[in-house]
């Protein structure tokens, strides 16, 4: 059976663009079975912007799963925004998992915001000042939670949904100097250890759509400026019904 995953991140909605994105979601049920949102749904992370996001994505005919991004944290209201989305029927991941039944297939989605630190050989270490240790430790704790969530996940197909990138493949186009602020290999290491069918992320507006982890898991950067289209659609069952 088909398992078509629509995904987009970095829609950066605000009261100035309320209602504009919704028109692109008309008929999404003809193109996809589930919609995944890869964070940075708002610009400033205010409750007013959260309301715009709710109105844009509520009552769709397919399930919607979201993670928040760094912009959604800016006003220190991520829990409140997540609660608003959940009240509207949108599932929000915070370093945990959800299983969605799609056409008889159990789709497991694991993820959360993710964080930075850089990529193997060019990354920060948990050493020195407390501020650096806290930065690196934040990513390590997230990666550990994803590893556990993947290990415990009971599903037919497994997708990881993140805001920050787990690989540097999909950052091509961004200045290399800022890679440590765009993602961390620790996320990919955890995912590779437990296995997944697809990884989706946003955050890197000037990056590239397609990449791979070291273990060969497909990674897609679905940031709206990268896609240039309302959402990408990825079919996990190959030619068997897509």
């Amino acid at each position, binding site marked *: 059976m088909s398992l078509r995953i629509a995904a987009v991140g970095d829609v950066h909605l605000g009261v100035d663009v309320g209602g504009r994105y919704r028109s692109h979601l008309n008929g999404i049920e003809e193109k996809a079975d589930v919609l995944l949102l890869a964070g940075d749904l708002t610009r400033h992370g205010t409750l007013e912007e959260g309301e715009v996001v709710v109105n844009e994505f509520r009552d769709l005919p397919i399930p919607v799963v979201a993670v928040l991004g760094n912009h959604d944290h800016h006003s220190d209201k991520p829990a409140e925004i997540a609660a608003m989305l959940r009240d509207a029927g949108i599932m929000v991941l915070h370093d945990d998992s959800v299983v969605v039944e799609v056409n008889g297939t159990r789709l497991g989605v694991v993820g959360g915001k993710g964080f930075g630190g850089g990529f193997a050989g060019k990354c920060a270490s948990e050493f020195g000042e407390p501020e650096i240790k806290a930065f690196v430790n934040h990513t390590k704790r997230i990666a550990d939670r994803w590893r556990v969530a993947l290990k415990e996940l009971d599903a037919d197909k497994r997708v990881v949904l993140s805001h920050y990138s787990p690989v540097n493949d999909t950052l091509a186009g961004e200045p290399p100097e800022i890679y440590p602020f765009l993602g961390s290999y620790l996320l990919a290491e955890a995912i590779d250890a437990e296995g997944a069918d697809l990884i989706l992320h946003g955050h890197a507006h000037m990056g590239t759509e397609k990449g791979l982890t070291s273990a060969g898991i497909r990674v897609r950067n679905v940031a709206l400026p990268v896609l240039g289209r*309302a959402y990408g659609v990825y079919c996990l069952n190959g030619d068997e019904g897509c």
Partner: protein
Amino acid sequence: MEAPQYVAARVQGALAEDDRTHELGIRVDVRGDQLFLRGQVGCLERRALIADVAAEAAPGLTIHNELSVVDVREPEEEEKL
């Protein structure tokens, strides 16, 4: 005279931190008394605001607003994985 790199960094910081913009992905280049803004933004109103904030952070420079508005196309055929 302030080094152009510092001016560009100050403008980039203002675009990220100013409540009116919070834009992290804007490229800022300073050449002489010219300041160039490049990148993609969500709508025309945001494009204009970014130029306003840049002008306030770098008074006296001529702003060249080369930002483009993201053109959201309809979804294409799915990718089979």
